């Protein structure tokens, strides 16, 4: 016999009347009412406070929403290699490559950047595969965890939005160094565009 039957203790008359419980509840409500009437926010005042008034402190290494980053000179780091689109398990990423007529990269020598880069945040599972596969250190899972919107379209973040949310990530700037190294050599003059 692994089941132990516990008899429920019958409610006392005091408990069955419910009124004391309601009154003690109303007392809490009244206390909060009076405190906020004096300009205090109870949710932020009490011990560590409550979410969402007090946002949760995100730990280092937390895997939140993936955003695109710029390099220290403000250039788009993504070169539209589409490896993240390929690896993405829920198929949340959709990249439109520049194509033959598209605008070239906004930095010299990298040749390529995406025409459009969309992440469907409703699909994204914050797994971090995109960050891991990226050969350009252009996409990072950042600390945002609470993404809200009023429509499905709003939850598809485009390139502009992802870049503005992502901020800057200083890196090794390999394309810049390649260009400098090429300019340093004299055999083939480097075209500057």
């Amino acid at each position, binding site marked *: 016999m692994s089941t132990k039957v516990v008899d429920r203790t019958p409610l006392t008359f005091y408990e069955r009347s419910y009124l004391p419980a309601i009154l003690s509840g109303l007392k809490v409500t009244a206390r909060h009412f009076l405190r906020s009437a004096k300009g205090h926010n109870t949710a932020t005042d009490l011990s560590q406070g409550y979410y969402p008034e007090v946002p949760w402190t995100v730990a280092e290494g937390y895997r939140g929403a993936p955003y695109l980053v710029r390099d220290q000179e403000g250039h788009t780091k993504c*070169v539209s*290699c589409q490896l993240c689109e390929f690896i993405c398990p829920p198929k949340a990423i959709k990249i439109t490559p520049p194509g033959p007529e598209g605008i070239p990269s906004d930095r010299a020598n990298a040749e390529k950047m995406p025409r459009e880069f969309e992440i469907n945040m409703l699909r994204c599972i914050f797994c971090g595969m995109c960050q891991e596969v990226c050969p*350009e250190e252009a996409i990072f899972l950042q600390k945002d965890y609470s993404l809200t919107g009023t429509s499905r379209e709003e939850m598809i973040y485009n390139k502009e939005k992802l870049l503005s949310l992502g901020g800057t990530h200083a890196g090794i700037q390999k394309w810049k160094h390649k260009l400098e190294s090429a300019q340093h050599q004299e055999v083939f003059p480097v075209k500057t565009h």
Partner: protein
Amino acid sequence: MSNPATTTPAPAPAVPPPVEKIRIKVDGREIDVPKMMPNWQGKLEPTTMLQACHMAGQEVPHYCYHPKLPVAGNCRMCLVEFGTPMIGPDRKPVLNEDGSPKIARSVLPYEPQTPRGAIACATPISPGMELYPNSPATKQMREAVLESLLINHPLDCPICDQAGECKLQEYSVQHGQSASRFVEEKVHKPKAVDLGPRIVLDDERCVLCTRCIRFTKDIAGDDALGIINRGSYNTISAFPGRAFDNNYTLNTVDLCPVGALTSKDFRFKMRVWFLKETKSLCTSCGTGCNITIGSREGVIHRYEPRENNAVNGPWMCDAGRLNYKWVGRKDRLTEVQSRGQRTTWATAIKEISERLASATPGSTAIIASARQTTEELYLLKRLATRLGAVTDSVPRAGNADRLLVCDDRNPNSQGARLTGITFTELGIQLAWIADGIRNGSIRHLVVFGEDVTQQGIGADLLGKLETLIASDILPNATTARAAFVLPGCAAAEKRGTFINVKGRVQRFEKAAEAPGDARPEWEVLHELVEKVTGSTGFTTIEGLFNQMAKDVPALAGLEWGKLGDTGVTVAI
């Protein structure tokens, strides 16, 4: 069955001459290989180590070697360690204790402990030879060659269009080392060089295999490319003052084992691993080059040649390769229309079949297109037979060249001839049809895939018709005047067969969905024929083809399943 299909154009000799074989050992396994093998031109030449290894199931990695190009032997990637039977001073083979011939492994003459490989692509085999394509020495040689090829390689795979189908990537994984030992600065060469109207060259990525140079000189017959500068500064270049602009330049993009030559048309369009590959046919001329359509999510991104040695070898022309953009045009016909009003297929087919069925015999004319599939032409012919209609098609002539392009620019003129839509000469009935409309004997006209206003049947004549039924892919002057407009499909959006000028019956598969209401013409025609003639048929393309093969004498004995990927030649 009077004209049965044959699988070869010329009857093969009854008894093929015996093939002289040589016994060699590959990786310790004995194998008999032919002494002579066809070279890139099909002429017999001594079998090479690479061919022998291939026959033994051992692929030797290579960059410069290509079975359809002259052997250059400059990339050194196919180095293989080998040994030959030892010959004693008495010119007799030296034997081991067990009586087997003693094998002398090839070594450097001044350093007998160091194995010496030979390039497998250019070294002929000899009797008793032993090849070691998997020996430690061979692997070490491959690693060393690959390391040296990668010394100045920019490693810009993220921005390289070749990534995913690049031999440097593949061999680096299979035979390379994980890290580079090269600490000096890489030699930088010109990037994104405009080599010709359709080609971009990245000199840094080039491994100097010279496949492009050999192709354009020996296959395309345009000696346009060469190597300039010396040593590490070697670069591919077009002859000064001349653009690399012949009609076969894009084949060098396929040939280029790395990302040095890339297509301007496909540049930065889509990563190749996303492309769905569909076996199809080029529709730009009567040659019927076999192609692979690369598409993603219904968008066609590129055509590539598909090897078929009976038709196009591994090549195709640039004009045909780039002739796909109209498929995705925004102004495609996407609505079934009846007198300018949008309608459904069921209503339109019902109305059309009633009209045609009640038409006076002989008062209908059908103008088909030799760009339609054989099945569609066959169905149109059945419709014409029932209606007593006169049929014809429209000829399309152009200039032929010495390699692939044909002077007949219709992909299926033979199909139109064999199904009986046209006489031997296409278009000779068109004037007769025009006269018929003028004098009122032809009251109904069915046009498929052609603009008859360009063929002597002008807008005034079309206005005199009682019924004009037009099916097409793109809008034109005929569809603008048609009572019934039936949106059709490009070859890439349906299945079917074409018969090329030499009588090769080849099938193609569907790569993309047609836009809007557009349906494959054969489906529509099939319903129409069923309604007009009352006979039921097959609802699959396979069944339809097999039915057609029974009815059309020239195709007797053929079956859809027997066509295979490369087709069957019929007597024409």
